[in-house]
């Protein structure tokens, strides 16, 4: 396979990547399934042996028939032939069972690993990837890989062994025939590999577009009210069509990659038949071969046809899987920019918080890179409650995201009780630092699973105790099946306030030393807010708290106040002191706020 041009070299290079990826991923996920793989191999090889034996019986039969043997001598051969056929099929079904089972077991592990890996990727990644697109990658792409693990390994590798067996038998039969058929098989397989390298990138494009389309549809499904009530439906339909319009030419290119493979299949057949006709008639006329032997060669060459066709058919899955695996690799190679290398431990109890010249800018594409927080510096003693105020966009929410290490600052350091955040394992950190946002995310699952995030090690007793403490027991009892009641992902059946309380329960189940409430009490009616206030009192008991609020009322329980503007602290200090200072920003806010909002 010498490259005949720059383009071919590039394609050759592309072809190498999936092959290596296949081997790496195959090795990793099949290792635990070793025993079933061995059994699969044995069963598949047995089937192939039986398949090779069949034509030998036919030759004996035909030579017997033309050589004047009586039908009664021929009948046992025919019966043996049928028996072999039956056993061979049994082996085939068994092998299918094993291969599908192995394939799904292996790819299930890959799915789970991939999901875990992606969950750990930074928020910058998640901001630019819709859940719909991730579904396509984690399930769609990996499912096309499961074909590689099962159908592909057994069909392609099994069929290659079958072809190898046929070639060996033909070499034994006649050197010239063996050579002729071998050359044709090698040429065909080389051609297929070549064609496949052209086709894989095309499929990659098709799948990427498919992910885009599904992402679009997912968004549409989530935003029907916005679209309809603002008259955007025709626009969205037009946009849908425009995505389709861009998709069509890629589909055509992708599928014609498959046409090329099929053309290779036809070539296979033509070449095989030509070889048989040419060599068969020459060798028969020279008296080297019997009629039965010519038929044997014919039959074996025919037998290469089906495996090559199957390899060809699997190539389509192989192409899809190739595109899939390239994208899976791509995902697996992506690393979170949040390095998790810390080993220090945080002490129990309330935590002291210190920001040391912290500068941060969102580095996602599309962001301006201007600092959201600029050399921010403050210390919050353990056990105290800090109220953070500022316009939306002033950096308040960013503060919370940095404390939970959803992002890392570009400069400066954040310390909890003197330990830098980066020195603590991320999982430990998030165990000790809890955050509630206004937008409580729920799952289409039972209340229990919603509270525990599917962690089955948390028993009901503990859950019920926490629910009781939060005053949610009457509500829980009103549900038909208590903790087993199902919530919808959209949160329907649950008021915003109840969703908030559920979020508190999630936190109560841990024992954080720092609690961050980010706009936690917005969008609630006063009665529910009161319930939440009580819960917040409990939540903040003997803990350090940071309350990020847009409304003055929310921070009345704060000991200290921090007012942010454009990433800078424009005021900070003891709340009462500031409130009593007529020149302070806070008292100004309270004055306008109280007149306009609270008075």
């Amino acid at each position, binding site marked *: 396979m010498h490259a005949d041009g720059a383009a071919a070299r590039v394609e050759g290079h592309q072809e190498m990547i999936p092959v290596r990826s296949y081997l790496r991923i195959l090795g990793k996920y099949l290792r635990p399934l070793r025993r079933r793989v061995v059994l699969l191999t044995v069963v598949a090889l047995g089937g192939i042996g039986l398949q090779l034996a069949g034509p030998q019986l036919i030759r004996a039969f035909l030579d017997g028939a033309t050589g004047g043997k009586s039908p009664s001598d021929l009948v046992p051969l025919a019966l043996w032939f049928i028996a072999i056929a039956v056993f061979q099929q049994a082996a085939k079904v068994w092998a299918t069972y094993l291969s599908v089972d192995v394939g799904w077991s292996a790819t299930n592990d890959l799915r789970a690993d991939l999901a875990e890996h992606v969950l750990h990727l930074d928020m910058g990644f998640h901001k630019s990837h819709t859940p719909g697109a991730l579904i396509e990658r984690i399930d769609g792409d990996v499912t096309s890989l499961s074909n590689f693990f099962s159908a592909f390994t057994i069909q392609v590798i099994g069929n290659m062994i079958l072809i190898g067996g046929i070639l060996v038998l033909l070499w034994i039969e006649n050197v010239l025939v063996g050579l002729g058929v071998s050359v044709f098989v090698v040429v065909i397989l080389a051609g297929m590999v070549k064609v496949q390298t052209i086709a894989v990138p095309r499929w990659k494009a098709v799948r990427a577009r498919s992910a885009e389309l599904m992402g679009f549809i997912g968004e*549409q499904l989530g935003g029907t009210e916005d679209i309809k009530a603002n008259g955007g439906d025709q626009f969205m339909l037009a946009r849908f069509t425009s995505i389709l319009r861009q998709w069509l030419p890629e589909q055509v290119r992708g599928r014609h990659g498959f046409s090329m493979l099929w053309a290779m299949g036809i070539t296979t057949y033509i070449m095989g038949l030509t070889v048989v006709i040419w060599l068969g008639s020459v060798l028969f006329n020279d008296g080297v071969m019997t009629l039965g032997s010519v038929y044997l060669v014919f039959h074996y060459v025919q037998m290469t046809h089906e495996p090559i066709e199957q390899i060809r058919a699997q190539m389509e899955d192989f192409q899809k899987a190739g595109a899939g695996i390239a994208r899976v690799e791509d995902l697996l190679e992506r690393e979170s920019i949040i390095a998790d290398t810390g080993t220090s431990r945080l002490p129990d109890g309330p935590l002291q918080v210190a920001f040391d010249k912290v500068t941060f800018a969102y580095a996602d594409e599309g962001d301006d890179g201007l600092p959201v927080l600029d050399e921010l510096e403050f210390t919050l003693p353990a056990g105290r409650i800090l109220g953070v105020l500022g316009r939306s966009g002033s950096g308040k929410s960013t503060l919370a995201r940095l404390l939970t290490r959803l992002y890392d600052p570009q400069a400066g350091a954040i310390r909890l009780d003197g330990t830098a955040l980066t020195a603590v394992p991320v999982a430990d950190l998030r165990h000790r630092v809890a955050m509630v946002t206004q937008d409580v995310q729920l799952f289409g699952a039972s209340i229990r699973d919603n509270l525990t995030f599917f962690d089955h090690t948390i028993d009901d007793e503990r859950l019920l105790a926490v629910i009781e403490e939060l005053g949610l027991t009457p509500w829980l009892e009103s549900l038909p099946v208590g903790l087993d009641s199902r919530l919808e992902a959209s949160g329907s059946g649950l008021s915003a306030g109840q969703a908030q309380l559920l979020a508190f329960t999630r936190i109560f189940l841990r024992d954080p030393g720092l609690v961050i409430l980010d706009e936690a009490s917005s969008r609630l009616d006063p009665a529910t807010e009161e319930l939440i206030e009580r819960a917040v009192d409990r939540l903040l008991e003997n803990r350090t708290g940071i309350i990020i609020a847009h409304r003055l009322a929310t921070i009345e329980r704060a000991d200290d106040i921090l007012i942010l503007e454009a990433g800078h602290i424009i005021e900070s200090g003891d709340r009462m002191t500031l409130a009593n200072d007529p020149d302070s920003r806070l008292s100004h806010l309270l004055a306008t706020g109280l007149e306009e909002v609270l008075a």
Partner: protein
Amino acid sequence: MTERQAPTARLMAGSVRYVPWRYLANVFLWSTIWLMPVIPALITREFFNSLELETGTSPIGFVVGVLAYGLGRMGVMFLAMHNDIHLEFRVSSLLRRNMIGRIYEMPAAQAVQGSPGEMISRFREDVDHVQETLSWTVDMVGAALFGVMAVWILGGIDRGLTLAVFGPLIVMVIVAERFGGRIKRYREEAQTATGRITEAVGEMFGSVQSVKVAGAEASMVDNLRGLNDRRRRAMVRDKVLTAGLESVFWNTVSIGTGLILLIGAGSLAADNGLTIGEFALFVYFLGFVTDAGYFVGIFIARFKQAGVSYTRMVKLLRGGSPMRLVQGVELDLKDSGSTEQATAGVAQQPTAGVAQRPTPGATQQPTPGIAQQSTPGIAQQPTPGIAQQPTPGVAQQLPRNAAGVPAGVPAGVPVPDRLERLEVCGLSYTYPDSDNGIADVDLSLARGSFTVITGRIGAGKTTLLRALLGLVPADSGEIRWNDRVVPDPASWMVPPHAAYTPQVPNLFSMSLRDNLLLGRGDSEDELIAAIRTAALEHDLQDMPEGFATMVGPRGMRLSGGQVQRTAAARMLLRRPELLVFDDLSSALDVETEQTLWSRLLEEHRGATALVVSHRRPALQRADQIIVMEAGRIAAVGTFADLRESSDAFNALWAGISNGT
């Protein structure tokens, strides 16, 4: 609810009617592909016959024939594939387009049931499955033709043997039929299991921040593992049954060959019996005939599976004829030239097209369609009298958002449609499978008034807005726009009559500009004005790309407050007669909220506002406050009235004044 089986065959016929010529071409091309192998089969027979007769014929003639056949087959194959791609693409696109179209027709708050992930699997797996099955119908025609041809050729050689070849085949097809039901059930289980996984993965990443902050990655993944395992078992069952059936089919080749040997033993041994060439022909056809039988069997199974997929898709249509799924819609897939244009993609107006917009003279326009306003016929024709085209005939064909508002003209509707008074009588709606909802709501909004709906969580505030806007279908009650009954609120209460900002607004992964416009052609000045009113202008200044800023999936790149104000700007840009806010202020700080209200009242004078809020600035500005309690109106009045007379209001007010 009873689940009706979708009419698979009729739906497929509907798809065929959408692309009749491509389908016919496909039938012709793929039949040719099925029939062509007869040629090399006959060549092979002649070859073996020539050997057996020991004529010493040169192989050149045979070789040339084989090569010519190969070239011909490749040509036909490329044509057939090409046609097939276009056929499948159009068929699947139509299904997807019609599902989305239907979703937009339904009351928006109820259009989507089930999780997005599970819904997406209908757009993905189910559509793919149906599209492939349809393209297989062509193979069925080819297989039938090939069967006839084979019987004719083989029957001419030896009728008894031919029967022995076809006998097992027929038995196999019957077997497949009998197993079909089980395949369908297994497939359904596998599909459900897949739906669960898509759902779980979708939710996992939809809530990624919560999962991270809770440090719950491991337990979430464990849950996924459990679901994965359930699907594996379903898949194994499905695949093994399918493989078993396939194996039975493949076995017919070998067993058929064995039968030919067994039955034909005497004939082959005899001098004037079966020749080796004819034996080869039999075996050769056996392969293709079982191939055809195999295809038929698989097709039957697939056809049944397609029924499952169709049923799932039809369920998404929620009522209406299943045939809506394949109702013809012009998709315009032709122009694939520039991607730029494709993204702008609005049927009637490219984004830059403000200048060339037809100058309508909204006010002098004769007012078509008003006389019919109160007739029920309006329900099907959402746009009479709205579009500003001079000829009424054209107007009715316009999509309802086509009425772009010319710069500087404050009102977007002809004078008779200007809102003077909106009245609601006895409006009731109860959510399915629950007792929640609203009952017997009466209200009246005068032009230019500011009405605030307040009440506790679950009092029915949002539901009232939804029912009024037609986002949920009212069970009973009447909405009157200037004394004319609105027969179909969903198609009337849209711009330029009304626009809405939901409680948790959704943006879409497009530019800020596209999010605001949603297909309208407003000028830069109008955009800037709307942004200013919504108090978003500082945020916009901080975005280096300005209106071209991509907001990310669901607007995730913007802060919560920015999303909400963007949604408000989106609504304001439409200059609707009626502005409907559902708790707009929830993600806004004190100063921003005040700015927004005062700008709104100043710049949209004449517009009528209906606002859900329990915040002081809104309540004190209100011309009218409506207090909701348990789905009913508890009190109506001005702030002062209610303070004096309404216990319900005072109870709420106590909560507000306590500063919580």
